[in-house]
C-alpha cells in the first residue's frame, strides 16, 4: 500500500466522475427525486375522496352532519342519492369511493344510542381508501346531541393529518434506500468499467496492487455517500420538518458503517460481473429484497418468520433500525449496538470474499 499511488487513483476517479455528467447528476438527483417522490406522493393521508350522500332522514341534524363531514376535506360530497342501491351501483362503477348513508330513523338512533346512527360505506378494494375508512369510522357521529357544535375544523384536521407522521417515518428510511441504490450500483459499475474498457490490462502490468486499486476506486464513493446523506437530511428538515432527536455525529457514524457495507457488496458484485450491464442487473437483484424486506415498505413485525430471517441478512434492515432509533427515538449507538455489530459482520464476510476474488492477473 503506497499512499501517493492510492491518492493518484482517487484523483483519477474524481476527475472521471466530474466528466461523467450522468453519474454526477444521479448522485445529486436520485436523493432529491426520491425524497420528494416518497415524501409527497407516497402518503397515506387521503384527501378529496369522491363521495355520495343518501340522506333519508332529512332533518336539521342530519344536514349538520353532512356539512361537518364535507368540512373535513377528506371527502368531497359530489353526489346526492335517494337510496342505498344507488350507492352500490356508483361504488361498483368506481364513480365514488365513499358514501354517507343516513337512515330515516337517524334522530331516534341518536337518542337511543343502541345502533350506529349513520353509516359510511367505503370502497375496500383500494388499500389507501381502506385506511381512510378506519379514520372515517372514528368520526364522532355517535356522540352526544351537541357534538356537532363542538366539532371544530382544527380538531378534524389534526385527526386526519398523518401526513407529518408519514414523512417522519419515510425520510430516515430513505437515507438507507438511497445509499443502497447508489453505493452498490456505482462501485460495482466503476470497478467493472475498468475491466471492460481494458484499463485493467494496462494497470496489472504496473506496480499497482489490487488493494490500492479497489480502495482508490471505492473511497471517493464514501464521500459521495456522506454527501447524499446530508442532502436527504437537509431536505427532510426543510421540506418535511423531520426531527433529529439523537446525536448528529452518531447518525453520520452509522451512515458511514452502512456505506462501507454497501460498497463491500458493490465490490463483491464487481468480481462476479463481466460487463457494466451485468453489474447493474446484479445491483438491482440485491436492491429489491432490501427495499421489500428491510422494513422500509412493510413492517418487519408483520412479515412471516422466514422473511424475517432473510431480512436479518440484509444490511438495510439493520441500518433502518439504527437511523430510526437515532433520529426518531433519540437512541444512542451504544443502545443500538446489535445492529451495528450485524453490519460489521456483513462487511467482514462480504469484503473478505470480494478481496479474495480480486486477482491481479488475467486468468
Amino acid at each position: 500500500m503506497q499512499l501517493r499511488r492510492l491518492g493518484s487513483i482517487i484523483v483519477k476517479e474524481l476527475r472521471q466522475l466530474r466528466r461523467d455528467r450522468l453519474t454526477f447528476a444521479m448522485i445529486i438527483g436520485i436523493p432529491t427525486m426520491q425524497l420528494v417522490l416518497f415524501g409527497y406522493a407516497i402518503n397515506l393521508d387521503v384527501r378529496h375522496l369522491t363521495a355520495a350522500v343518501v340522506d333519508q332522514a332529512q332533518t336539521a341534524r342530519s344536514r349538520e352532519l353532512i356539512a361537518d363531514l364535507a368540512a373535513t376535506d377528506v371527502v368531497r360530497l359530489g353526489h346526492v342519492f335517494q337510496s342505498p342501491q344507488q350507492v352500490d351501483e356508483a361504488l361498483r362503477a368506481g364513480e365514488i369511493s365513499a358514501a354517507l348513508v343516513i337512515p330515516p330513523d337517524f334522530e331516534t338512533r341518536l337518542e337511543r344510542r343502541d345502533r350506529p346512527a349513520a353509516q359510511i360505506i367505503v370502497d375496500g378494494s383500494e388499500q389507501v381508501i381502506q385506511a381512510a375508512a378506519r379514520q372515517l369510522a372514528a368520526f364522532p357521529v355517535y356522540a352526544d346531541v351537541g357534538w356537532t357544535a363542538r366539532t371544530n375544523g382544527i380538531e378534524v384536521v389534526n385527526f386526519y393529518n398523518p401526513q407529518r407522521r408519514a414523512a417522519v417515518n419515510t425520510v430516515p428510511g430513505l437515507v438507507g434506500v438511497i445509499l443502497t441504490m447508489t453505493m452498490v450500483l456505482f462501485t460495482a459499475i466503476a470497478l467493472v468499467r475498468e475491466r471492460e474498457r481494458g484499463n485493467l490490462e494496462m494497470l496489472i502490468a504496473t506496480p499497482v496492487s489490487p488493494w490500492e486499486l479497489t480502495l482508490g476506486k471505492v473511497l471517493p464513493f464514501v464521500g459521495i455517500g456522506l454527501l447524499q446523506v446530508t442532502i436527504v437530511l437537509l431536505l427532510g428538515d426543510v421540506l418535511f420538518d423531520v426531527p433529529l432527536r439523537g446525536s448528529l455525529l452518531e447518525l453520520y457514524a452509522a451512515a458511514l458503517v452502512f456505506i462501507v457495507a454497501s460498497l463491500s457488496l458493490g465490490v463483491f458484485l464487481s468480481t462476479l460481473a463481466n460487463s457494466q450491464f451485468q453489474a447493474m442487473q446484479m445491483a438491482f437483484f440485491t436492491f429489491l429484497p432490501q427495499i421489500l424486506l428491510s422494513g422500509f415498505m412493510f413492517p418487519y413485525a408483520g412479515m412471516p418468520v422466514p422473511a424475517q430471517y432473510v431480512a436479518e441478512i440484509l444490511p438495510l434492515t439493520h441500518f433502518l433500525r439504527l437511523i430510526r432509533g437515532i433520529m426518531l427515538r433519540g437512541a444512542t449507538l451504544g443502545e443500538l449496538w446489535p445492529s451495528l455489530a450485524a453490519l460489521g459482520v456483513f462487511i467482514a464476510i462480504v469484503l473478505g470474499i470480494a478481496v479474495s476474488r480480486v486477482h491481479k492477473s488475467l486468468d
Partner: protein
Amino acid sequence: MSDDVAIRATGLTKRFGALAAVDGVDLTVRRREVYGFLGPNGSGKSTTIRMLCGLLRPTAGEIDVLGYRIPRDAEALKRRIGYMTQRFTLYEDLTVGENLDFLAAVHELPRAAARTRIAELLERFRLADRHGQLAGTLSGGQKQRLALAGTVLHKPDLLFLDEPTSAVDPQSRREFWESLFELADTGTTLLVSTHYMDEAERCTRLAILDRGRMVADGTPRDLMTNLPGRTLLVETREPREAQRLLAGTPGIIAVAQIGNSLRVLATEGADFDRRVIEHLRAAGIEAHVQPIAANLEDVFVVATTAPAERPHAAA
C-alpha cells in the same frame, strides 16, 4: 543466466481447457534486441507475451526475465517493464497530461522528475500541444504515441508490445517503428508481436509462431537465405491455367499470382525449376522459370504449413 540475455523461457506452455494456446515454446531474447513475434491470429503471440510479463500463469515451463523468476517475482519485474497492447488502454475520459500524471504516480516517479520526463516525452512524441486534450478525442496515431509514451514513462529496461500497430495507418506505423529503434538505441530491449511482414522484417531477430508452437527462429536475413532455390518466378501467358495445374502438384507448397506472373514456393530447391518447366510443358503451357530470392512471406508460409501438407519438409 548471462547478463546478455533479457528473456529466457523453456518449455513454455499454456492450456485453456483442452486447447494448448502455447505449446512448449523455447525462447531466448538478448538485450537491446528488437525481437519480433510473427504469427497469424490465435497463434499464441499474446498469450506468450502475457506469460512473460507475469500477467498469466503458465501451465508448464520456466521463465526468466531480467533475472527474475516469473511468475514468482512478477511484482518486482513490473517496475522494470512496459506493456502495451493493440487496444488503447489509457483513460479516454482523462486528458493527455492527466493520463501521464496518473501513470507517473503509479510508478512512483518523484514529482519533479515526473514533470520533466512528461514534458520530454510529450515533445518527443509530438503531443506537446495536446496536453489538455481528452485522450478519447485523439486520432489513432496520436493515441498510439500517447500509449507508447505512457509505457516508457518509467524508463523500463524491457518493452512488451502486443500488436501495437494494428489499429493505425501506414504512416503512423512507420513513425512508430522509428520510435522503437530510438528506444533500442538507448539500451531498451523490445519484444514486438505483429502480423505485418514489413514490420517483422525490421526486427533484429524473429520468431514465427503457429498454433502455439514456435516454428522458426532467427534473424530475418538468415530465415530468408535458408530457403535457397525454393522460390521460383514463373512467367507465362496463361497464369491462371498454370496456377491451377501447379497448385495440386506434390512438392509445391504455395502458388501465388503476382500481376501476370506466378510465385511458386517449393518444398526443396535442387533442380526444381526444370521440373516445373517440364510439368507445364506436358500440359501444353510454355513458361519461363527462374529462381528468385525468398522473402519473409515465403519463410512464413513454409514455416506455418503443417508437416502433413509438405511431405519432404526441409528442417
